[in-house]
């Protein structure tokens, strides 16, 4: 076995292999795909949040020149199952039927009603206007608390309730018991506004059918080609082995493409009906209505502590907005945070309940961090409020309660075992980079002077749960699938290498990082490695990319597959060199006999020998290819400390980020440049939740922030330069010591920014500002405090 330590490639900032085609425009986005006879599909969507469909008539659309076909939900229902939800979190969960195209009733503005197929996209879009629909409006269901009230209008009348499920978790002592002995119990309500994920590439689907054999190729801008293949085969009845799913270049996902969408199923259904290739590409406005949203929770949280700042327990009561239907992991998304509310802190009691609620709004599902940003926000906000109550510096309160470096591995009150961490080191480094004491002095000075521009300082110390997920844990949580990942390494006859990975990237740089891992383990040049992904025919097995699982599960599978290749190559080299395996050294891709270095075989030579197979050890199979499937034993737990200084203009409510410093510990780093890039992107999204973004609905359930003109995705001019650094505490759970990084920035930054905004305004009597902390909200909070 090689068991090499981190070598010359891992740990190195390599510019990415995947850039070349992206910066020259030689891209393969799904919408770029052109095939002979391609038809364009357009979808009529509900203009109302909730209505009965009395009549849907597509005949006038069919009369338009260039229109090939048009279908209602009823036309498409034949042979199509309900769109799947694979995470029935409780036994008695309410699982409503979810047709790809609505049949009798629409339940959110944007719910598909009918489909037109035409020769080109302009004709298809025009023909939508000719479809006649008679609606009977039904009452919208928008407020989570009202939705649970007796006699509330129902989103799914056949279910008799808007309550989807109630999921409890009580660990440690009872919260009521620690409440008795606490000096202080604080209770707060935080609102996690709905967010629109906004991957820059809108979703797109192309289906090419092969009528003679009943085979279908589906190209999709998906994060999850393997999961989509399984589920779309189930929904449409197309035999799985005849369905090939390809995720070509995918322009971002952030969880919004961790989904199996009705549009994919209906594109398959239409291609099957017509025997012709079809394409659907989402407009951005459609994206805002029809691609799932994120967050959307009311968080009631209580924290119990002693007067000297020792935490005793936490109680969390969540209302989680499911939206109108359950998408693949809608019910489970808030539960990904259930275990994370205690954060990095030691306490005795934890009591959690989540109630899922149906509303007549776009379905929710995973958005960057999925449950964990929400959890981190609530604990880090209430820690700040507790520090104020106790008269402690917020950093000091955290210090008094966090798990110390020497206490790892540590099992949190929620039952997770954190393998390693060093919160002190990350925090010390961040405080030094930030100039904490100096900024506090400036803040005091401004407050003293009654400056109209106040300075606020926010901290957030966090851990997250990466590497989704151990399959047995998923079983216990009633998630339908496993969390393993697959990799195959093929040593080609010419000595080049193909790494086949079951993860499916959309901007994370897998081709580069997997090449680095494989190059080190095999002792081959980085340039000689190609990474194959995102095509269920080329990559038969995989669980795809989400939840910062790619490196920690998929990358480790690559490492182990490479070890298997080297083990087999060693046997062949020993045979060829007439030496004992134990006498062989393996360095930089060369097997040599200890003591006689001239007796050597490169791994490339061995690869050719195993291809020709002229002289293999008895009983050995040809080639030295190897496959490895890894099922992680545990999650990994990156952590870090983020510090934000804001200047808030108390006259206009405008918040400006003055400085942002973060020190993240993601274990061993494969490619520092890529890690930094992931952190930057995550920060932008987390800051955007804190300051800018919100899906806003009116009282009728119309999405007011329905385009990029109405929903503030921050631009370069809205964001600051970040100071990012890191500490490195290797994970003890995998041979590379890696932990994952994709979501860290998003998880940590939202509370850091809001804590800073509130910190700036506390001297004015402001105790909270609801997200996003827009100038309007900040100004109103100041005005209210002054009254």
């Amino acid at each position, binding site marked *: 076995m090689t068991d090499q330590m981190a070598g010359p490639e891992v740990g190195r900032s390599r510019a990415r292999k995947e850039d070349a085609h992206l*910066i020259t425009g030689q891209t393969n986005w799904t919408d770029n795909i052109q095939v002979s006879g391609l038809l364009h599909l357009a979808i009529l969507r509900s203009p109302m949040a909730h209505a009965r469909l009395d009549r849907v008539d597509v005949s006038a659309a069919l009369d338009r020149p260039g229109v090939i076909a048009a279908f209602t939900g009823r036309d498409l229902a034949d042979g199509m199952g309900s769109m799947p939800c694979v995470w029935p979190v409780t036994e008695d969960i309410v699982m409503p039927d979810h047709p790809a195209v609505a049949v009798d009733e629409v339940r959110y503005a944007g719910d598909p009603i009918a489909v037109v197929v035409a020769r080109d996209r302009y004709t298809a879009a025009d023909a939508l206007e000719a479809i006649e629909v008679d609606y009977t409006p039904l009452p919208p269901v928008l407020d989570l608390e009202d939705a649970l009230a007796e006699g509330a209008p129902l989103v799914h009348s056949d279910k008799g309730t808007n309550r989807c499920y109630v999921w409890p978790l009580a660990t440690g002592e009872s919260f009521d018991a620690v409440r008795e002995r606490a000096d202080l119990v604080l209770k707060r309500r935080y609102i996690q506004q709905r967010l629109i994920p906004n991957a820059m*590439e*809108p979703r797109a689907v192309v289906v090419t059918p092969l009528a003679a054999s009943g085979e279908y190729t589906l190209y999709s801008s998906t994060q999850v080609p393997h999961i989509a293949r399984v589920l779309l085969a189930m929904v449409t009845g197309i035999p799985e082995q005849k369905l090939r799913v390809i995720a070509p270049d995918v*322009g971002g996902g952030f969880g919004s493409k961790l989904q199996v969408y009705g549009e994919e199923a209906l594109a398959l259904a239409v291609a099957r009906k017509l025997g012709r290739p079809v394409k659907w590409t989402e407009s*951005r*406005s459609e994206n805002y209505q029809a691609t799932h949203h994120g967050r959307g929770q009311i968080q009631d949280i209580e924290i119990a502590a002693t007067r000297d700042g020792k935490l005793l327990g936490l109680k969390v009561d969540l209302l989680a907005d499911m939206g109108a239907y359950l998408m693949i992991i809608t019910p489970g998304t808030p539960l990904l945070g259930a275990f994370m509310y205690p954060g990095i802190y030691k306490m005795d009691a934890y009591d959690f309940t989540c109630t899922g609620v149906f509303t007549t709004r776009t379905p929710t599902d995973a958005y960057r961090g999925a449950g964990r940003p929400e959890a981190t926000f609530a604990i880090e906000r209430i820690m700040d409020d507790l520090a104020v109550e106790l008269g402690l510096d917020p950093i000091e309160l955290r210090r008094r309660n966090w798990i110390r470096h020497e206490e790892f591995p540590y099992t949190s009150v929620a039952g997770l075992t954190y393998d390693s961490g060093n919160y002190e080191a990350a925090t010390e480094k961040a405080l030094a980079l930030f100039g904490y004491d100096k900024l506090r002095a400036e803040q005091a000075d401004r407050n003293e002077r009654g400056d109209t521009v106040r300075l606020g300082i926010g901290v957030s110390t966090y851990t997250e749960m990466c590497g989704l997920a151990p399959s047995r844990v998923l079983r216990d949580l009633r998630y339908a699938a496993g969390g393993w990942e697959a990799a195959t390494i093929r040593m080609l006859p010419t000595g080049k290498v193909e790494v086949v990975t079951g993860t499916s990237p959309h901007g994370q740089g897998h081709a580069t990082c997997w090449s680095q891992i494989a190059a080190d383990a095999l002792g081959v040049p980085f340039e000689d490695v190609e990474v194959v992904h995102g095509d269920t025919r080329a990559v038969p097995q995989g669980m795809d990319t989400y939840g910062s699982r790619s490196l920690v599960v998929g990358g480790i599978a690559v490492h182990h597959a490479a070890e298997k290749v080297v083990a087999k190559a060693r046997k062949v080299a020993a045979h060829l060199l007439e030496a004992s395996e134990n006498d062989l050294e393996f360095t930089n891709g060369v097997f040599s006999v200890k003591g006689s270095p001239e007796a050597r075989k490169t791994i490339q030579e061995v690869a050719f020998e195993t291809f020709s197979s002229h002289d293999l050890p008895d009983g050995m199979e040809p080639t030295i290819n190897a496959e490895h499937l890894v099922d992680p034993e545990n999650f990994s737990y990156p952590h870090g400390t983020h510090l934000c200084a804001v200047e808030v203009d108390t006259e206009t409510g405008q918040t400006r980020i003055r400085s942002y410093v973060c020190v993240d510990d993601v274990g061993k780093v494969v490619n520092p440049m890529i890690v930094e890039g992931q952190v930057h992107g995550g920060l932008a999204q987390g800051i955007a939740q804190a300051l800018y973004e919100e899906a806003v609905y009116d009282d009728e359930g119309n999405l007011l922030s329905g*385009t990029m*003109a109405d929903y503030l995705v921050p*631009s370069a001019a809205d964001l600051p330069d970040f100071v990012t650094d890191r500490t490195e505490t290797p994970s003890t759970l995998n041979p590379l010591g890696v932990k994952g990084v994709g979501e860290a920035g998003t998880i940590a930054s939202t509370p850091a920014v809001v804590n800073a905004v509130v910190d700036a305004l506390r001297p004015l009597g402001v105790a909270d500002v609801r997200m996003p902390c827009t100038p309007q909200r900040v100004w109103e909070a100041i005005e209210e405090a002054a009254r």
Partner: protein
Amino acid sequence: MTHISVNVDGTTYEDEVEPRLLLIHYLRDRLGLTGTPIGCDTSNCGACTVELDGESVKSCSVLAVQADGSEVTTVQGLAQDGEWTGLQKAFHEQHGLQCGYCTPGMIMAARDLLRENPHPSSDDVRQALEGNLCRCTGYQNIVRAVLAASGQEVPA
């Protein structure tokens, strides 16, 4: 239908187009020049930015007929004989892209900036790219890339 003659990335195309056809759809669907993507329908995202007679424009807000008699440069026309431009190299070296969907637009908008202001400050770059949205990079490495392409030292 209206007759147009457009030179795109050095090749002249003669076509009959509907007056309402957007330049981006003409490039992508008619000419098959799919290097320039579409990110929104409100001209907010800038992914479809190209050059029209040397000025950067969002090609979703220009009609194909308006490009009649003009020269259009897309990201596909930048590299000559396989040699990337300074901006392309800088985006690669500074990790100024992740999913890459906004990258053609970013590069085209940055070219416009550097023509007008060959030595922009970091703030200048941020202001100039305000109409181009990126969801992956947090912009910092895009700013670094543009500064590096202008020959300036890039803050670590």
